[in-house]
């Protein structure tokens, strides 16, 4: 399965809009699965006006201590990287599930095998069949539980579920940022599409993402969104300097905001719009290259 990840660094540049429209456009030619890996703020289903279905729990391991086997040695607490196990001297250890990242270090380190595997539900993944106009695709969405801080395992679990679909092409929508949730999302992709805007903020964060892509050895294409709100020369500079390529320039338009509010992607809401045709071209291009 080919894989394209839509990312960008700065929030609100149009990652989800591009991902949703391009995935739908590509669905005309190929069998598409779209994965919303922005588990902290998942919005693709909202842009597609879809109710999420097919819920599965995303679980990570948390330790349960079998006090009949525990010898109070404190090893579990020593190996715990997140401070989720406390072992007061000479007393039985206890766990703080909120802090546990599910790494299993304690489980493997315990000399008396006194740790049993329990689980913590950190969020949910969903599988929703989307039909929009004549096109259809499968949307896999990850939703982190509010208050949970271990984001990466939720991203990885959602990505796994999407990869199990084995279609022609996986389109990934990532979170904002340039940290490991984005790394986990784009790692293994054939191509990234970095969506940016022509402002110093967009440029600053685009540079981080292009650098990340090059470290991972992934080719990067850039979509400049909201063209017209500022000078785009700096974006072009950064793109050239990183050996990336600008694949589309999308003008700022209130039409896109309207389609966004209505929950109908612009390629369906207003197919004759210039932005819609840009997204269609990009979708066709991806269905051919990946």
């Amino acid at each position: 399965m080919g894989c394209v990840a839509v990312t960008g660094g700065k929030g609100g540049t149009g990652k989800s809009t591009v991902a949703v429209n391009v995935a739908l456009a590509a669905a005309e030619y190929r069998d598409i699965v779209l994965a919303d890996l922005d588990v902290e703020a998942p919005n693709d289903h909202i842009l597609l006006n879809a109710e999420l279905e097919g819920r599965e729990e995303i679980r990570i391991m948390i330790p349960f201590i079998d006090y009949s086997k525990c010898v109070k040695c404190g090893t579990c607490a020593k190996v715990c990287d997140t401070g989720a196990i406390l072992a007061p001297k000479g007393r039985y250890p206890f766990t703080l599930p909120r802090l546990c990242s599910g790494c299993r270090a304690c489980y493997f380190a315990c000399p008396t095998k006194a740790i049993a595997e329990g689980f913590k539900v950190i969020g949910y993944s969903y599988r929703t069949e989307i039909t929009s106009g004549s096109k259809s695709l499968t949307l896999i969405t990850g939703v982190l539980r509010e208050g949970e801080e271990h984001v990466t395992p939720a991203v990885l679990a959602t990505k796994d579920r999407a990869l199990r679909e084995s279609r022609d092409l996986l389109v990934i929508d990532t979170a904002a940022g340039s940290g490991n949730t984005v790394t986990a999302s784009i790692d293994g992709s054939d191509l990234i599409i970095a969506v940016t805007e022509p402002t110093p903020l967009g440029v600053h964060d685009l540079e981080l993402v292009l650098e990340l892509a090059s470290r991972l050895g992934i080719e990067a294409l850039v979509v400049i969104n909201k063209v017209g709100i500022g000078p785009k020369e700096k974006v072009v500079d950064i793109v050239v300097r990183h050996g990336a390529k600008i694949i589309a320039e999308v003008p700022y338009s209130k039409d896109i905001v309207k389609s966004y509010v209505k929950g109908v992607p612009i390629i369906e809401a207003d197919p004759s719009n210039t932005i819609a045709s840009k997204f269609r071209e990009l979708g066709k291009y991806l269905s051919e290259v990946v």
Partner: protein
Amino acid sequence: MIEVAVASGKGGVGKSTVAASLAIHLSKQGYSVVLADADAEAPNAHLVLGINSWNEVRSYSEGYIARIDYSECTGCGRCAEVCAFKAVKYVGGRYVISELTCEGCLTCSLVCPESAISRTRVVAGEVKVVRRTRWGFPLVSSLLTLGRPNSGKLVTEVKNTARNLAADDSIIIIDSAAGIGCQVIASLAGAHMAVLIAEPTPASFSDLKRVHAVAKHFGIPSALIVNKSDINPDYTEVIIEYAKKEKIDFLGTIPYDEDIPKSLSLLKPPTEAFPQSPASKALRNIAGVFEERVLRNWSKWRYEFKPPEARPYVPIIIKPSEYSISGEVK
């Protein structure tokens, strides 16, 4: 000291612009202010202020990465099997630990039969400080080591640095990251209130409710600003209704205004680049409301808008199936 976290869930709705405008306004009104950019993965507050040099840049070491000693490694692959973060891959005939995705839990080192895995301390990122911006207040920012974990701990370091620069009567304004995860939780933890920002779209509303749920976990009162309110006035009303119902103090709206991106391109805060533009007027107005209604009546305000009930985050726990011992989980 009052710590105010500016958050939104969704990205690109105007957190940095509002945070910077608030800091400038309050500073001009004579308040002692510290601005902390708590978005270590995409730090932008300094750009809104047009800052490009720092008085201090120091690296912050936190956590480890695992390293394989290939003279000992037999290629058994146990490390890859147990890695919960999929950071070990088989590349070019051997197992390689990714320097980007390794979370430093060292679980691999515990299962390696050859003890071929050791740990190395890593730099989580940099903390950057401008001691005195042109408006008088300090700015603390950061930059995460690209692609790496630990952004939450870096945010905590930024906040601690900001606290050290603050006086007893200071207002610390924390410009949070998008999302509701590690970084945002680190921003909200210990904050005295949240200023939530939304734009009138269903996506932003959905994310607003999620970040508000996290604010409620911490039991802190929230205020709301609706940005770009005129792109969808009906939906703006929906969000304001939500605020009323949820006891969030509605501070005001900011209209969509092309002068905001223009001012960003000029590397000037909008209230200075285009002081007479509608958005600048709204930003000043909101800062004024914030000062009068929130800060001047702080003890009353925080009580009035405190979430009605404390709702701490409760993890959903599944016990091991064969588990019959009365081990308590606290």
